[in-house]
């Protein structure tokens, strides 16, 4: 397996406060990597820096290229995609238009319809609601649309920020099943999640982020049995 994405000694500051400090992590091709940690640990900040919405120090490498100075749009054109915590849907526009705009960065537009059909197959609910405005969807449907829209860009690395946030347990299971199935398509995934158990059950490798620093890492199947993590994040005693 070759390396898809890596961060080396990445530091992100808000004014003079370091929200993320010297973080290093990597995602191999076809791997699901998760970053878990408490609220305010810097997980979202990390992804914002990875996509370029926040400036950072350190080295960001995607498919062997240094992307640290690239704009957000250049990173997206290289098929590095982020589904942000707020989803950032185009609420006044239809589900179909949201999905179509997901493919905006693709230069080869010949396979768009096929990709759209694949997204509708994966999320039949979106097909039922394709003419409906995105702003009128339920929380679960909005998350499906955010995921579907990202898939329209045929991502090589998909970064997901709290995909389970605010969703009913049944929908959360469906979302995580979808995430696991994306690995089979060869999409690498960097998953940031507060729902540590669901994330570690889905991921291959995990990092634990606390107050802006990586404090622990290892294969997900090992982390899920780690006593400290069980006490702190996995709801065990």
């Amino acid at each position, binding site marked *: 397996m070759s390396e898809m994405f890596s961060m080396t000694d990445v530091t992100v500051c808000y004014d003079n406060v370091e929200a993320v400090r010297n973080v290093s992590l990597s995602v191999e091709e076809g791997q699901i990597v998760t970053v878990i940690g408490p609220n305010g640990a810097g997980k979202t900040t990390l992804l914002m820096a990875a996509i370029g919405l926040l400036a950072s120090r350190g080295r960001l490498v995607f498919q062997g290229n240094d992307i640290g100075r690239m704009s957000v749009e250049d990173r997206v054109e290289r098929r590095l995609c982020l589904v942000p915590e707020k989803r950032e849907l185009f*609420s006044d526009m239809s589900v179909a238009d949201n999905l179509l705009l997901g493919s905006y960065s693709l230069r080869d537009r010949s396979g768009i319809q096929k990709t759209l059909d694949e997204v509708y197959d994966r999320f039949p609910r979106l097909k039922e609601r394709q003419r409906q405005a995105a702003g009128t969807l339920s929380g679960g449907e909005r998350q499906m649309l955010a995921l579907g829209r990202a898939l329209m860009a045929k991502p090589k690395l998909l970064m997901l920020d709290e995909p389970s946030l605010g969703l009913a347990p049944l929908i959360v299971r469906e979302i995580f099943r979808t995430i696991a199935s994306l690995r089979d398509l060869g999409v690498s995934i960097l998953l940031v999640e507060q729902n540590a158990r669901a994330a570690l059950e889905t991921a291959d490798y995990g990092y634990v982020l606390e107050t802006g620093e990586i404090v622990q890492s290892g294969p997900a199947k090992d982390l899920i049995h780690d006593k400290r993590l069980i006490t702190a994040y996995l709801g065990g005693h």
Partner: protein
Amino acid sequence: MTSDIAAILAIDGIATGAVYALVAIGTVLIFTVTRVIFIPFGDIAAFTALTLAALDAKRFPGTGALVVILACIATLIEIISLLRNGELRLLPRALFFYLALPLAVVGLAWLTMRAEPPLAIRLVLALMLITPIAPLLDRIVFRPIADGTVLLLLTVSVALHFALVGLGLLFFGPEGVRTEPLTSLSTEFAGVLISGQTMLIVIAALVFSGLLYLFFDFTLVGKSLRATAVNRTGSRLMGIRPARAGTIAYLLGSLMAGVSGILIAPVNTVFYDSGFLIGLKAFVGAIVGGMTSYPGAAIGAVGVGILESFASFESSALKDVIVFSLLIPILIWRSLASLHSEEEIEE
């Protein structure tokens, strides 16, 4: 006032309102995509009328020199920006869009003008010469402060208007112009004579609004502009570049303003500083539509046109006072009626 006079005033008002509607739609377009309330839109409309008048008089318009100067400044700024960001690989592209393309437009207009072209070609030339101005001003003035507050952008926009009025005097001179009517036809409807020019104004407003609707609803670029207007961060995550969306919005907006300038030139005498009132009345129309709705802006602008027409009949001296007084109740109603969505609050 008899019903005949009321009908004449209403038709006159609709025609004036249709011109304002084109500028108002352009204003909304620019605002939603870039957050800039582009006050100089009226100036762009007036400059188009002045450009067409110069072309009619077989003189090469001052617009050519204005475009060349703006292109040189924009190119210089773009080169400095690329050097600072270490993006020299983008230099050929920048030279093409900011220098070669505007110069080619001016060159083509200059060559075509020597052949003494017919009116239809002169109209195209006037629009061609006017459309690069707003995108170049965007690069020079607004791009460096794109992340500023709406208030800062508005303040700069007002300053830019005054700068353009000065440039208008320099490039076009103090004389007013009135171009020849685009058609001499006229028809009678329900006992009221309607001139061909009036019909042309309304038809042009409807056609351009319709084309804009088709562009937004049926093309990927149009949808990307709407997406930028709805959610800037979301659109960037799709790979849509706000700066490029802004340039397209300015180009389209300029085209709308240009068309309105061409339509109003045979009806009103246009001076280098006539644009301010056109832009301001269109702005009132756009505010009626909440600065975000195209149909709302168009309806608001037509309403302003009709009000102005009746106000000028009742008291010519007070017509502008009456139109702008309309703003106060509308702003009160808007501020009381507006609902803030969850996303707006989050932002």
